[in-house]
Structures are given as structure tokens and as C-alpha cells.
């Protein structure tokens, strides 16, 4: 029944790990060929893989885990998906109903544990209601603001026979978040667009979640108005990096021109972003002179952090369509003169060239490694996942994204260990595409067991590890904020990644000379199978620009050539 429900929901791939309490479902999976099952090596990997699958396809990711430890291992992934609004349906086994509450073997209060880290969850105690619950689970995961849901299924319910209800026969759910925005507010926004002298679009993951149509409409609106646009980490690719309006990412490690535009603008149009603390910096000094509009499908995002003038609750795609309609009908007006001097100011900021760095000599700068990766893979059918830390920010800064759903990263929760399993999920969905996980060595080790999954399922994922033998972002903060006391932020006893790759049955490449980098990347791309590429990079490189927390957008720290000399003896002692 479970498998039938998944088939009727159009599920093609399930990421999972068997165990006692899900054996009946695994038995059903064994006896069919429509749904492929990817055996991961750890349940956290299953959830992240499903996230990668979901983020790169727009379809919900499906996970199957057993009771107790199977379910608790899935918690990090669920929380990650909740914060980044990724639609997931997680099915977990549970001990038989008559043993629930008995401290039975591998029993955990899964519904209780996952209540705060799912959008909704169910304990399916009645076999007759099981199929209805699974269909409802898909509905909830994908409607409104997407998110992870969990259905906990006791083993006796899995064995029981009941009447199957197909999706078409399920009673319409009362859960129907509105998608259309209020026309009065939309008209108010259009009026503001017509008058704005210093506007900026600030877009987020909501545009991606709204589907490719929303990205298309966003491009149309941005290009037609000629307004500049910046995006959060989660929203990269909704507007192409090569587009005329593109300023680059904003936020703590965002580009100078993007953050300055946010600070000095007179109209800020937030589309599907949520004024996260890594974006706003000092809230009381956040964009002090602007009128702010906020388009979000979740009413609780509005006025949560920043008070806005024009709130619009609705789906980004629908609202953008209406904005374009109204704006065109009113004569496509913008303040051309105002925009011209605004762009002149932005061009001045761009001249600072905040991402510049100097690649000198043999030691590879991480920025250089990513610049070369971008150069050598540009135009390819390419998907990028990342782990969490400095490499993640550099990837966001130095790689260009032309399309939505091409960039998978753990934004809200910042989960180290996300990237490798996510790359597995992305490659499952796009078997012929190039999937690169830009990683740091410390994050990568957190879920390195999933290399086994990649090898078993012949998924040619490329693990591009920027290895600085440090927890780079932690080290950077310790340097800047904690008096250069590097408490436990370096990696000792690292494995030999080439041998590790070989042990898994993958290919390993090591490169430590900038002159060899291009050849090494070419070798990685040419190999038809999973690769672990160990790029030994400058150990003390800091990620700039940076808005120190507690400061507003216009107080950014820019990178300094002098950083290296300023490290001092404390840092040098660690080498």
C-alpha cells in the first residue's frame, strides 16, 4: 500500500536504509521495478540526498528509514530542510502499535522528536487511513511554503491490509495556503516602482521554490525595469549571473556593491527572502532610507525581523505575474534619470572589485581554485552542491549560476556534511549532468561514508575539496574576534584523500601546485566515475568581503593583501 501510494504520487527514487521496523515496506520495494531505491550509508545522508534531489528537480524528495536510530539520524536533515523550505516526505518505521510506549527495541517517540523539525507529521495507526495520510503528506510538503513532513508507520500497520484510497479519491485538504497576492498592495508596489530613484531587488530561495516560471518572470521584470538585483545564498540562479542587473550575492560575505545598494536604496523589493540575520547585519541600521516591500508565501515571515511598508502574502510566481501585468498596463514607467545616476553610483562601488585576490607562486588560493573550476566548467550542464564554511561562501562568490535549481547548499541550518550526500541525490536526478560538490575537508569528512553510495550506484559525483587543514570559517572568526586563539579549529590526522578514494573504489587526485590545477580539474572532469579531488590550498586565507556582525551593510571589511603578514606568530605557530 505504501509503495502504491508513492507510485501514484509520481515518486521515482527513494533514498533509504532498511531496518527491523520497515522490513514489510522493503519487501514490497523488492517486488517491484517502478521505484528505484538508493541505499545510503547513514540516514542523515538519505535526507540530504533527498534534499539535493528535491532542490534540483522541484519535486519532493522521498526518504525511507527505520524506527529509533533510523528516525533520530534523520533529524538533522529534517531540520535542514525545514529551514531551507525543501519539500521532503520521510517515511519512518515504528514498533507495532501494541508496543508503543513500552520502550521496545529501537523505539523512539519519532513523532514527538520530529514535531519541531517538520512542517507536519503523522503517526499512522489506522491501516485504513494510511494511504490518505501519505497523499496528504505530499500535499502538505509541496503546498504553500514547502517543507519536510514525516509519516511514522508502525510495523503492524505495514503488515495489515486495508482499503487503498487513490489520490483522486482523497478528501480535499483544508490546508490550502493562498497563492494570489492582494491586488491593492501589488498596485502600491507598482506605484513605488514607477517612482523609485534608487531601487533594488533582493531575492531569495522563495523564487526557486516557486518554480522555473517564477524565475522567468523575475528575469522579465528585472530586465524590463532595469533595476539592479541581488540575491541571498539560497536564491542564486533565479536571475542569471551574466544578466545586466546582477550585483552578486548580498549578506555577511556578499559583494560590496550588493550590500551598499541595499544600504543606500530608496526602494527595496524583497521577493521570497526572509531578512535572515546573516543578511541584515545590524537591524537598527538596516537600509535606513528605503521603502520596503516584501513578497512571501508565509505570513509569519512578514514583519518578523524588519518592518516593511508593503507586505504581499502570496506565491512569488503569481505575484510577479500580477506586478508585471499592472506595471505594463500603467505604461511601463520608471524614473529613468534617477536610475541612471543610481547605476553610476553602483558602477563606482563595483570598481572597488571586492573579490580581487592575488594568486602568486605555487600555493593555490582557494579563490583561484574556484575561479578555474568556473572557467573550465562554464556552459556545461552543471550542478553545484557545497558543504558549509568558507568554501561555501567562495563558491557563492566565484561561481556563476545561470539557471535556478543548479545550486544546492545548506543555507539556514548551515549543516556541515550536507554537500556529499546532496550531490548523490542531484546525480540520481540528473545522471548525465556534471555534479560537483565544492567542499572543505572538515565538512566533507562528516558524511564521507556516502562515497560508498556514489560508487555503488555509479554516480560520477566530483568531490572538489578545498583542503586547508583547518575549520576555515571557525579559524577566521577566532582570528578576527577571539584574539587569534585557535581553539580546536585545525584538522590533525587527516586521511590521505587519494588513498581514501581508492579504498572506496573511486578515483583520487591531489594537487598542491597552482600550475597543475587546470590539468587536475580536466582530469577530474574527464573521469567517468566518482572522483575525490584534494586541492591543497592556502591555509590562512580569509573570506572577504565580510560584514562583521553587529555592523550595518556599509561597514564592510574588504580583503586586504596584508592579511598574510598580519597573521602573526600565533597563527604561524600552528603550521
Amino acid at each position: 500500500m505504501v509503495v502504491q501510494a508513492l507510485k501514484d504520487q509520481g515518486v521515482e527514487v527513494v533514498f533509504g536504509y532498511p531496518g527491523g521496523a520497515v522490513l514489510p515496506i522493503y519487501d514490497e520495494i523488492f517486488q517491484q521495478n517502478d521505484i528505484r531505491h538508493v541505499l545510503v550509508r547513514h540516514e542523515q545522508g538519505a535526507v540530504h540526498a533527498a534534499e539535493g534531489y528535491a532542490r534540483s528537480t522541484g519535486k519532493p524528495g522521498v526518504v525511507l528509514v527505520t524506527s529509533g536510530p533510523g528516525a533520530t539520524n534523520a533529524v538533522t536533515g529534517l531540520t535542514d530542510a525545514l529551514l531551507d523550505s525543501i519539500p521532503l516526505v520521510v517515511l519512518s518505521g515504528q514498533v507495532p502499535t501494541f508496543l508503543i510506549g513500552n520502550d521496545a527495541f529501537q523505539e523512539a517517540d519519532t513523532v514527538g522528536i520530529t514535531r519541531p523539525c517538520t512542517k507536519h507529521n503523522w503517526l499512522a495507526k489506522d491501516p485504513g487511513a494510511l494511504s490518505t495520510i501519505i497523499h496528504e503528506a505530499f500535499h502538505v510538503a509541496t503546498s504553500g511554503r514547502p517543507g519536510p513532513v514525516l509519516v511514522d508507520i508502525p510495523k503492524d500497520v505495514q503488515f495489515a491490509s486495508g482499503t487503498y484510497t487513490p489520490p483522486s479519491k482523497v478528501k480535499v485538504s483544508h490546508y490550502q495556503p493562498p497563492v494570489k497576492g492582494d491586488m491593492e498592495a501589488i498596485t502600491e508596489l507598482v506605484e513605488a516602482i514607477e517612482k523609485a530613484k534608487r531601487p533594488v531587488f533582493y531575492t531569495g530561495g522563495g523564487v526557486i521554490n516557486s518554480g522555473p516560471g517564477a524565475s522567468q518572470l523575475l528575469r522579465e521584470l528585472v530586465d524590463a525595469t532595469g533595476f539592479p538585483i541581488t540575491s541571498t545564498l539560497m536564491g542564486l540562479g533565479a536571475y542569471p549571473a551574466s544578466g545586466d542587473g546582477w550585483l552578486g550575492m548580498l549578506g555577511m560575505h556578499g559583494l560590496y556593491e550588493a550590500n551598499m545598494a541595499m544600504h543606500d536604496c530608496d526602494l527595496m523589493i524583497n521577493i521570497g527572502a526572509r531578512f535572515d540575520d546573516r543578511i541584515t547585519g545590524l537591524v537598527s541600521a538596516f537600509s535606513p532610507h528605503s521603502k520596503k516591500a516584501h513578497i512571501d508565501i508565509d505570513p509569519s515571515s512578514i514583519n518578523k525581523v524588519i518592518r516593511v511598508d508593503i507586505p504581499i502574502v502570496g506565491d512569488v510566481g503569481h505575484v510577479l505575474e500580477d506586478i508585471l501585468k499592472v506595471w505594463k498596463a500603467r505604461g511601463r514607467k520608471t524614473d529613468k534619470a534617477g536610475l541612471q545616476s543610481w547605476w553610476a553610483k553602483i558602477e563606482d562601488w563595483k570598481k572597488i572589485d571586492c573579490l580581487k585576490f592575488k594568486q602568486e607562486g605555487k600555493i593555490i588560493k582557494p579563490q583561484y581554485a574556484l575561479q578555474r573550476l568556473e572557467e573550465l566548467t562554464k556552459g556545461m550542464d552543471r550542478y553545484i552542491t557545497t558543504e558549509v564554511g568558507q568554501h561555501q561562501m567562495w563558491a557563492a562568490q566565484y561561481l556563476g549560476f545561470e539557471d535556478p535549481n543548479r545550486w544546492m547548499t545548506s543555507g539556514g541550518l548551515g549543516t556541515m556534511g550536507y554537500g556529499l550526500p546532496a550531490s548523490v541525490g542531484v546525480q540520481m536526478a540528473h545522471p548525465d549532468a556534471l555534479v560537483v560538490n565544492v567542499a572543505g575537508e572538515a565538512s566533507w569528512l562528516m558524511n564521507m561514508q556516502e562515497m560508498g553510495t556514489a560508487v555503488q550506484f555509479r554516480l560520477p559525483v566530483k568531490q572538489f575539496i578545498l583542503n586547508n587543514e583547518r575549520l576555515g570559517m571557525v579559524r577566521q572568526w577566532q582570528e578576527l574576534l577571539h584574539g587569534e586563539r585557535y581553539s580546536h579549529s585545525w584538522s590533525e590526522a587527516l586521511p590521505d584523500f587519494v588513498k581514501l578514494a581508492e579504498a572506496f573504489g573511486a578515483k583520487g587526485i591531489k594537487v598542491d601546485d597552482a600550475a597543475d590545477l587546470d590539468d587536475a580539474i580536466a582530469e577530474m572532469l574527464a573521469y567517468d566515475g566518482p572522483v575525490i579531488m584534494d586541492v591543497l590550498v592556502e591555509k590562512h586565507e580569509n573570506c572577504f568581503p565580510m560584514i562583521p556582525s553587529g555592523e550595518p551593510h556599509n561597514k564592510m571589511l574588504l580583503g586586504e593583501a596584508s592579511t598574510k603578514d598580519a597573521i602573526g606568530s600565533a597563527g604561524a605557530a600552528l603550521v
Partner: protein
Amino acid sequence: MSALKIKKGSNKHSAYNLRPDFSDVTERHTIAVLVDNEPGVLARVIGLFAGRGYNIESLTVAEVDHSGRMSRITIVTTGTPQVIEQIKAQLGRIVPVHEVHDLTVEGASVERELALFKVAGTGDKRVEALRLADIFRANVVDSTLESFVFEMTGTPEKIDAFAELMRPLGLVDVARTGVAALSRGT
């Protein structure tokens, strides 16, 4: 490089210490929430308040529509206007929640609470307790030679006042149901 020169012990550099400059006037609101009567729904509501650090002054819940399996949760909470707005929006996100009503702002409403008071004593104190109970229209629902249990329905303020009066007269225990509230009119 120690570009930031932040004093030791200062937490200025933590992004988590940045607070929006919203109004800090605290208001008391009574919120009615209509929910599916399904297992765990109360835990979702309470978990939301606990997880996001909202206050609960009183909370009542019971099924109000048996055939539709709907329950009504009445929550009295305090917070700044911005927090109250967040509470309502967050409640609205919970999947089994059908309706959220802020009775404090949606026109006039009535609030009632039921309370039981156990008062022990003899002689004059016992007589005085009974006399005050009469004035407050409290009923005696249990009696021994040394004690009464009074039952009273009223606004939370009336119940507070009665409890204050009973305290010197031998108040032993109070049980309160929490506030039930409905909007006035149709």
C-alpha cells in the same frame, strides 16, 4: 589581523544579539484557535510557544464540535505588538489549525474562568468565608465540619479578588480552568 578590536567579554559581535527596534510595550491578548482534534495538536501549539519563547498566561482546550472533530484552544498571552502578530502568524502555519482569532482586537468579547477554592477553618472565619462566597455568588460544592469547597465562575480578575479575600480565612487550595472566551454579538 585583528581588524575589529572588540573588547574582551563584549558580545557586540554576535549576530544573535542584534534586536529589532520594535515597540517594547507589552500587551495582553486572548487568542482563540480552532484546530482539528487529532493527537498531538496541543503539543504543536505548546511546542510553538516554548520553542519560540512566547508567554502563556492561561490555556484551555476542549473539543467543541464532536461530529467535525474540532477543538477550541483559548490562549491568553502577553507580548509586544510585533510578538503578538508573530504568534498569530506562527499559529496560522500549523497544518491542523483552521482559524486564529485575536479576541482582544476583533471587537468586544467575554472571558470567563471557573475556579474551585478549598477553604479550611472553624468559627468566625468559617462564617465569614461563607458570607463572602455568597456576595461573590460562589456555590458550595463540598462541605465538611472544617472546610468548604467553593465553585465560582467569573472573569480572571473576579477570581483573583476572591482568592485574595479567602487567603486570610484559611485558603488551602485553588484550582482554575483558565480562560474561555467568545466574541460578543453575532
